[in-house]
């Protein structure tokens, strides 16, 4: 787990003052005239129109998102309340993250006669009652021994629900509802967690307002389980307090969406070049041919792997940037999710720059708690163990919950066994980040660009590229020996 926090809003890589620096997206927010205009009604409308126009090119939900941003722009004093309204709206009309196919599949398998029109409302009502009750108890009795570690208790509740869905001797309709509960609690798990983390804050928001920020509309449009940008405590810290601050934040939102648009164009061009012009097959296809013992030549496999790695990076950046751009438009100075990953020189630094809010989730829910509790007398062991807790254990738990459909499809046992490939991925990642973190970042000493910049960057990217092989588990049915076979084929060993 990386703990090297980079500030995307105050880049450390910025050139010294006085030197000209070409930027693809100019720093509009530093122009006083623009910031001033951004505080007037016509100026706000222009900013919103530009934003909505770009959003239109990126998502079909652009109109609803833009309408919510419009309301917040002109009624910033009701920002948090409006966000809560947006959350409810999104839950009612844009709940595509809910796996309907899985619920229907369970109903069919069980032969259950279920009215699907009421499954979701009943499930949501139960979830809201459970989550609100759980948080209220955690706030009210936070010193009670059972509530000392509320995330652990929440995890146990989730596990019990999952075991119930898999094995409880219930009527068919009951199993459908239990699975609905599992599928609803999973996406909210980390949002509830951030509210629980906030329970000791002096300026904590009321529970209803906190719940209004669970799956806010900017996350809902991306259907990600990762809370962007973390929880209510972070939102309070980064909220724009003055009209000028709000204008700057919105201009940064527009800039980030422009960047998202450029990245979307880039990924399209990249796909045309690699798959259409160069005829490089997609990585899953190359891997399947390897399993079928009809492998592509080693150089094609390399090209496909590198291409897929770069495409994944671009995709993560596009989704994260779009979400953060929408969040900024509502007046929160959120950090970018992906920030110049190719500037990283160490594994820990890359991990931090690549997917910031996922890393932060792992830091807050796994790294810090482990750091606070274990190996207190041994500094290096303490940091290494905390890193493993986050990058390995936390990473595994996050993805197990996110991909819970495998349990319904394969059964709990097979889904767990099939998870060994990703488990290996997380273990190697955790060890590598831990070592990288303990070694630290070497400062340039003699200005040898090749040795101090290019070689570490190539090594770091090579590591992540090769590890990317183990990121694929092909429906959790492919044993890890196939991944090693593929890895060896890359260096010419058959």
């Amino acid at each position, binding site marked *: 787990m990386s703990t*090297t926090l980079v500030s995307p809003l105050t880049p450390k890589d910025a050139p010294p003052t006085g030197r000209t620096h070409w930027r693809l997206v100019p720093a509009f927010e530093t122009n006083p005239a623009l910031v001033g205009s951004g505080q007037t009604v016509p100026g706000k409308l222009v900013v919103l129109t530009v934003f909505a126009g770009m959003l239109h090119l990126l998502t079909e939900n652009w109109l609803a998102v833009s309408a919510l941003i419009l309301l917040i722009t002109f009624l910033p004093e009701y920002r948090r309340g409006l966000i809560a309204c947006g959350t409810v709206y999104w839950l009612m009309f844009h709940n595509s993250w809910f796996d309907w196919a899985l619920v229907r599949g369970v109903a069919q398998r069980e032969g259950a006669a279920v009215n699907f029109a009421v499954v979701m409302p009943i499930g949501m009502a139960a979830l809201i009652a459970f989550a609100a009750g759980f948080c209220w108890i955690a706030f009210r009795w936070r010193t009670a021994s059972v509530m000392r570690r509320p995330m652990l208790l929440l995890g146990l509740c989730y596990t019990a629900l999952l075991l119930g869905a898999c094995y409880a001797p219930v009527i068919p309709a009951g199993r459908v509802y239990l699975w609905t509960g599992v599928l609803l609690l999973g996406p909210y798990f980390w949002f509830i967690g951030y509210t629980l983390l906030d329970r000791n804050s002096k300026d904590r928001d009321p529970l209803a307002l906190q719940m209004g920020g669970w799956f806010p509309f900017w996350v809902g449009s991306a259907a990600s389980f990762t809370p962007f940008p973390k929880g209510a405590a972070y939102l309070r810290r980064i909220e724009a307090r003055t009209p000028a601050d709000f204008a700057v934040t919105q201009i940064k939102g527009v800039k980030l969406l422009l960047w998202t648009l450029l990245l979307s164009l880039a990924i399209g061009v990249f796909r045309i070049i690699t798959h259409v012009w160069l005829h490089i097959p997609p990585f899953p296809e190359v891997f399947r041919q390897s399993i079928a013992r009809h492998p592509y030549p080693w150089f094609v496999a390399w090209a496909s792997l590198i291409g897929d790695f770069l495409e994944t990076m671009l995709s993560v950046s596009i989704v994260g940037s779009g979400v953060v751009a929408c969040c900024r438009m509502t007046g929160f100075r959120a950090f970018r999710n992906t920030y110049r990953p190719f500037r990283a020189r160490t594994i820990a630094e890359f991990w931090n720059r690549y997917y910031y809010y996922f890393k932060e989730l792992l830091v807050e829910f796994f790294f810090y708690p482990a750091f606070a509790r274990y190996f207190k007398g041994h500094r290096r062991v303490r940091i290494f163990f905390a890193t493993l807790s986050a990058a390995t254990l936390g990473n595994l738990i996050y993805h197990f919950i996110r991909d819970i459909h495998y349990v319904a499809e394969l059964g709990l046992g097979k889904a767990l066994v099939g998870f060994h490939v990703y488990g290996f991925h997380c273990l190697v990642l955790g060890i590598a980040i831990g070592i990288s973190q303990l070694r630290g970042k070497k400062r340039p000493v003699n200005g040898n660009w090749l040795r101090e910049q290019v070689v570490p960057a190539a090594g770091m990217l090579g590591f992540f590229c090769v590890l990317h092989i183990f990121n694929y588990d092909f429906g959790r049915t492919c044993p890890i020996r196939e991944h090693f076979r593929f890895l060896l084929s890359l260096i010419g060993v058959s």
Partner: protein
Amino acid sequence: MDERTLVRALVESLLNKKGDTRAFGDGDSLIFGGRLESIDALEIAFFLEDRYGIDFAEIGFDQNQLDSVDEIVSLIGTTRIGA
């Protein structure tokens, strides 16, 4: 030296290590403001454990409590009152 001076000295040394020599106020957000990194939060934690005997297993590790000089000093004060 009082706590505030010690904390300021620690923060200053952490910033200097990164080549950040800009001035900072006691209320400035250091971690969420992007000037300090999470690894520095650990350095601050080590300092608070060693010097003031603060037990993060007991109070919970919260980045918010280490985000500014004011908040760190407040944490020291709170744990002292609690002790």
